């Protein structure tokens, strides 16, 4: 530690000089790059003439960001990282106790989620909390739940599924159709949607049992598209692209309703001012409970023979068979369990939106869910939850960044760049942490002490 600081002080003068030089070069290169792209803009005026606009201010911003960024990276950020790395290496010998935050992360996170809507109401008022509870809270938790469900198939069993959104669609349409045609309540249809999705999971599972890797991915992708196309084209039942609207709301176990005219309306019973926020807060707790159920079942299953068999299947399928494990039923249970949680999430989605259409179940959704799983670290519940918060919360946050219009001009809409940023974030995280946020896995049983297994030993699965 000590000698590192001395070398840095000794080399301080040359370091700053080098940083200035590299910053200057970065500025020159970016000037060359962006001169035509950013500095000049051609538009057509009202008489269809080509007009050349000069945007020197914006060009200056680009060049300055590149030059100053390079200077800061070389002069401060890199030495700081090097010092941190050296300090970590020096510390590695002695076992360091984990901080309070790290040890109790799960408990703290659950408590924070439970008080989150209350805080939102306290800070922004009943009506103001709507955005925070609905756009951020519910939206993120749906994706957390979906990603945890897919994690069973991809992260634990190592079966690459690109059509997971199909089960989400099955769940959503199960609720939408059965409640419309038969008038069943949400609490009856929630488990039913899960069972139906699991059934479709088995249906998908059978033909793909013999497939591995890329082939499996393509077939699951096709399955997702088949479900979507059936929903579009079976217009007699699903009303095609128009979708199904007017899906009944969920009630608090039938005790309090959220329908405006109902005598047992929640706001009326408690003599509160009418607002849709109560329903959203109720939905927030509902999806939180569903997500926690998913996590609980996953944690329990990992310690059961079937969960261990899933992970063993990911590591080596032939060895599994040599130990008397029926790989067919093991794969099917993985597909069915993952699909079931997708179905739960789907029926929740239908009840939240009040409207479902095939447009909500495109391949992009599958890709987003899968990238959350990969980004979080396959198999890790905490990592996946963090990835979902960053990915979904981040894209929601882009809507709030209206100040960017001042920098990039009035016609700049930040949310249009969400896929660009999504992709960029993926690349950065995969370079920085190739195994996702949490690359190591927790063993399910131990003899003397629980040691986490480094990501370099686990396999991604090839089946």
């Amino acid at each position: 530690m000590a000698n590192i600081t001395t070398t840095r002080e000794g080399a301080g003068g040359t370091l700053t000089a080098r940083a200035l030089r590299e910053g200057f070069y970065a500025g020159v290169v970016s000037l060359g790059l962006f001169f035509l792209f950013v500095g000049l803009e051609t538009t057509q005026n009202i008489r269809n003439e080509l007009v050349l606009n000069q945007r020197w201010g914006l060009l200056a911003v680009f060049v300055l960001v590149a030059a100053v960024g390079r200077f800061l990276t070389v002069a401060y950020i890199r030495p700081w990282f090097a010092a941190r790395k050296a300090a970590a290496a020096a510390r590695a010998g002695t076992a360091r106790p984990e901080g309070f935050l790290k040890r109790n992360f799960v408990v703290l996170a659950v408590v924070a989620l439970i008080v989150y809507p209350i805080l939102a109401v306290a800070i922004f008022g009943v009506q103001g909390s709507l955005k925070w509870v609905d756009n951020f809270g519910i939206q993120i938790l749906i994706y957390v739940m979906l990603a945890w469900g897919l994690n069973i198939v991809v992260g634990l069993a190592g079966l690459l599924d690109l059509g997971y959104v199909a089960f989400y669609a099955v769940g959503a349409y199960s609720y939408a159709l059965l409640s419309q045609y038969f008038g069943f309540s949400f609490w009856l249809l929630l488990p039913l949607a899960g069972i139906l999705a699991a059934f479709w999971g088995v249906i998908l599972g059978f033909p793909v049992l013999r497939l591995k890797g890329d082939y499996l991915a393509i077939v699951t992708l096709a399955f997702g598209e088949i479900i979507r196309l059936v929903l579009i084209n079976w217009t007699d039942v699903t009303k095609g692209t128009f979708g199904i609207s007017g899906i009944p709301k969920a009630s608090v176990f039938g005790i309090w309703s959220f329908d405006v005219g109902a005598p047992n309306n929640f706001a009326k019973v408690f003599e509160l001012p009418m607002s849709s926020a109560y329903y959203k807060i109720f939905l927030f707790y509902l999806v939180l409970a569903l997500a926690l159920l998913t996590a609980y079942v996953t944690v329990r299953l990992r310690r059961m023979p079937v969960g261990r068999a899933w992970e063993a299947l990911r590591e080596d399928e032939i060895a599994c068979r040599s130990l008397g494990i029926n790989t067919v039923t093991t794969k099917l249970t993985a597909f069915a369990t993952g699909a079931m949680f997708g179905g739960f999430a789907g029926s929740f989605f239908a009840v939240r939106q009040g409207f479902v259409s095939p447009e909500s179940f495109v391949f992009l959704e599958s890709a987003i869910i899968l990238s959350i799983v990969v980004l979080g670290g396959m198999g890790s519940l905490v990592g996946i939850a963090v990835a979902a918060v960053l990915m979904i919360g981040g894209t929601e946050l882009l809507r709030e960044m209206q100040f960017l219009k001042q920098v990039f001009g009035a016609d700049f809409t930040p949310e249009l760049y969400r896929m660009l940023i999504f992709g960029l974030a993926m690349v950065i995280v995969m370079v920085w942490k190739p195994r996702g946020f949490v690359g190591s896995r927790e063993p399910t049983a131990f003899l003397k002490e629980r040691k986490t297994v480094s990501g370099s030993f686990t396999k991604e699965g090839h089946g």
Partner: protein
Amino acid sequence: MAPEMNTMKNDPILKVEHLSMRFGGLMAINDFSFEAQRGEITALIGPNGAGKTTVFNCVTGFYKPTMGMISMTQKSGKTFLLERMADFEITKDARVARTFQNIRLFTGLTVLENLLVAQHNTLMRASGYTFLGLFGLPAYKKAEAESIELARHWLEKADLTDRADDPAGDLPYGAQRRLEIARAMCTEPEFLCLDEPAAGLNPRESLALNTLLTGIRRETGTSILLIEHDMSVVMEISDHVVVLEYGQKISDGTPDHVKNDPKVIAAYLGVEDEEVEEVIEEIEEIEEEGKH
């Protein structure tokens, strides 16, 4: 043909009769028959490409033989026709366990978890096929504690107790070999098939392997079939040796008998067919000199 082996009892655990395996135009095994006696260590040897691993894969169900019958008789007297069973059923119901030539461990699971996965079927029943275990019923907790005890037993036998909580991929090569055998034993087999267990081991590790294998036979009465190139292992521990060349049996008997069989020597040293007679004469001369 070499004389039939002279064991005292005749209680075969595995009977392979007229086994043939064809891959397209290649006859990998041609009308191969042998028996493995209960409680003995049977070695299957032969030059590279002789078809040893193919026999193995037929016995353990990873290949379906073109012709022939493979029957396995358990202690209880129950007989299984292995060629008609799926690979996982052979381990699950007939209780035949195997290891692989290129080690196949679950590298990302810990050593202990590897041994627990091997007890999948027992634990699955105890957990009421997951449904009962999900609610944390005591029956499953008891079964899991028992399975950890069994794993601990085999960890001690394989000398791996200290590494129990490390990932299996982190073990040195010799320890991985022993772990694979321990994992196979955790399925509680009556018949254990080992594909080149001593490959890549140094002499000391080879010795540890010998102790482990003879220990397994002595304490559990498990019959063992092994493929091996390392003659120090074969001659040291096996009771019965079968020699395979070009998919056909060329010798069958006690290690001493096989060691002196001119056909075996010819197969290993690679002499022309015409020279076999000369080799036989030479051996007879040597034997006579030994008698005098």
